């Protein structure tokens, strides 16, 4: 067991994977600098900086994978996926289906995402719910170093395209580049347990989906990914002081969703709180409501999400993102909404079991 940062964990897992599989290549803007250590070790042919041409190089990633490589394509921020969405929506996600299952696209797209450091609404989006809509792609959003390294391996090993979404508040170098720029003393409410933690000596993948119950709770179940998971944990502490026993589930992957784990928790609590840094409507939060209902559960439901364009002003930004205070409020409302009725319907299984 070692301790490392979220960013180091991803790099370390990549080092391990790239050393053992020469088909893995990394490309994206500025990767010679952003991935300097990989660049130094594996050389420019495997770690290639690109022009600012996301459509071309993400599209190229799809056929590079079809041509036998295991490309890891970097899109600097998920907001910029919008200029190249075609490569994902109409190509990466569909080749397997179009080819009658004969051709797969084992591509990883590594993308920084998330807000909380004052960069404004075009640079801090989450968008995992939007990307998860398209059948044929997987979306993982690790919340801590151990998961980050392991899910990177899972993503690489997967025969389907996987979007690996790395939160900028957890990856110290992004925060240094984009937020601090060498300044000190600025506070971004970085969740410590997400930014640094214990990791295994040798990386192994974890199955997708494999949600993790980080905290069992009798009264309500809080569900999220990425930074929101830590906000939930913080809220759970505060709720405990109020006598409310709140559980926390880290989904780890948005798509596919680990419906079984979520529903097993919900069956106990009958109360669902989704904390999501992505947009409120038509996304992850709604999907969780649907899968609960489909499982025959009738949870009381609250969602704490981003409801509008993220403001530039740090003070308003913090209010708009799912923070512990908002989560506590929503949880309190959930508790007062109604007493859960005794469990009358057993939930039916909807996805393969989480495997842990």
């Amino acid at each position, binding site marked *: 067991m070692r301790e490392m940062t979220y960013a180091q964990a991803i790099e370390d897992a990549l080092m391990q994977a790239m050393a053992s599989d020469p088909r893995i290549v990394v490309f994206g803007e500025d990767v010679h600098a952003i991935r300097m250590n990989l660049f130094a070790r594996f050389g420019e042919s495997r770690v290639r900086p690109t022009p600012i041409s996301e459509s*071309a190089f993400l599209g190229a990633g*799809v056929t590079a994978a079809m*041509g036998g490589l295991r490309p890891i394509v970097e899109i600097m921020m998920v907001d910029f996926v919008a200029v190249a969405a075609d490569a994902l929506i109409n190509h990466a996600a569909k080749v397997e*289906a*179009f080819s*009658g299952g*004969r051709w797969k696209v084992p591509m990883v797209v590594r993308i920084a995402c998330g807000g909380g450091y004052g960069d404004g609404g075009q640079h801090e989006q989450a968008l995992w719910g939007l990307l998860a809509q398209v059948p044929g792609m997987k979306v993982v959003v690790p919340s801590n170093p151990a998961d980050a390294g392991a899910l990177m391996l899972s993503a690489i090993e997967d025969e389907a395209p996987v979007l690996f979404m790395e939160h900028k508040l957890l990856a110290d170098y992004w925060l240094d580049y984009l937020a601090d720029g060498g300044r000190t003393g600025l506070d971004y409410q970085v969740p410590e347990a997400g930014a640094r933690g214990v990791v295994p000596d040798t990386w192994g993948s974890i199955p997708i989906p494999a949600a993790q119950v980080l905290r069992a709770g009798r009264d309500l179940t809080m569900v999220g990914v990425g930074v929101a998971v830590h906000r939930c944990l913080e809220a759970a502490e505060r709720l405990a002081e109020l006598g409310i026993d709140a559980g926390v589930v880290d989904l780890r992957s948005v798509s596919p969703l680990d419906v079984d784990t979520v529903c097993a928790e919900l069956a106990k609590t009958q109360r669902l709180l989704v904390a999501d840094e992505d947009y409120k409507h038509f996304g992850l939060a709604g999907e969780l409501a649907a899968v609960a209902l489909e499982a025959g559960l009738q949870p009381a439901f609250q969602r704490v999400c981003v409801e509008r364009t993220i403001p530039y002003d740090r003070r308003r930004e913090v209010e708009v993102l799912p923070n512990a205070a908002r989560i506590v409020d929503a949880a309190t409302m959930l508790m007062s909404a109604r007493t859960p009725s005794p469990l009358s319907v057993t939930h039916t299984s909807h996805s393969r079991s989480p495997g842990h």
Partner: protein
Amino acid sequence: MQSDGAGLYALMLRSRRFEEAVADLWSAGRISAEMHLSIGEEGIVAGVLQHLVDGDAMALDHRGTAPLVMRGVDLVSLLREFLGEPDGLCHGMGGHMHLFAPELLAASSGIVGASGPAACGFALAHQHLRPNNVAVAFFGEGAMNQGMLMESINLAAVWSLPVVFVCKDNGMCITTPAKKVTGGDLCQRAEGLGAFAISVDGSDVQAVASHAEKAIRRARRGHGPSFIHATCKRPDGHFLGDPLLRIVRNPVGELKSKVGPLAKAAASVQGASVGRRAASLGSVAAMLTRAGKMHLAGHDPVIRQAKRLTSAEREVVEATVREEVAAAVRAAIDSTEARA
């Protein structure tokens, strides 16, 4: 690989006869929705593809039939795909705009411009895994205004990717004359993106073949991408059942539902000035006139090539092709009928 004149003729004729058969099946209602053929473009496709070897890749657009046929895809399996059958090339899942043949490293897309990035990805995989292979991208001149295609020429240039970008210029983007929506010159544009650019008359398959040879040699040697700009005519318009061609071919029948509203619109109070309306009607008329001129005339690459052969050479090829295509159609339909 066929490098002689008769070989080129055979490649083209095979595609032509096959696409004619496809058109028949489509007309009979056995193939659904849009069907874009390459009839008239065979000189370009054959001239390039004759230089390909095992391991080379193709990135195709919405006109993927001809390239696949010329690369030797199983004809029955392709027809079965068009018929939507589970034993088709893509198990009936892709259909004619989404054709995939992993064994040929051939991938299609119905998204205009997408063959550019796709060729780059194949070429990148070649650089790592198959250093002597190349990737060819086929697309129309309209696609040259799609950002991702321009981006991909630049990407290929700066990474010295072994890509040959082949622009089949029929002068039309569905109903829009390319001139009207294209600034500058396409070869200059490609050069400004770092590619080696070549212009050629696409109805002369031998001319295409000799230019393509240079482009592919450059690519195999690691000298980076080329851009081949080749002109052509397409007698079937944009797709089978092209509404402009329907009007031209059956003006009375097709126009009766269209002329009324058009005349009414053009004459309505409120709207553009009389001059502008007249210009609009002029444009509509010109569009139909252009459509009316969509025949191959002297630009049929198949006929041009036929003239270079002896009648004996021609007859051998024609007989073989006729037989092969007929057998494929028979087999494709028979197995459907057998199942029914």
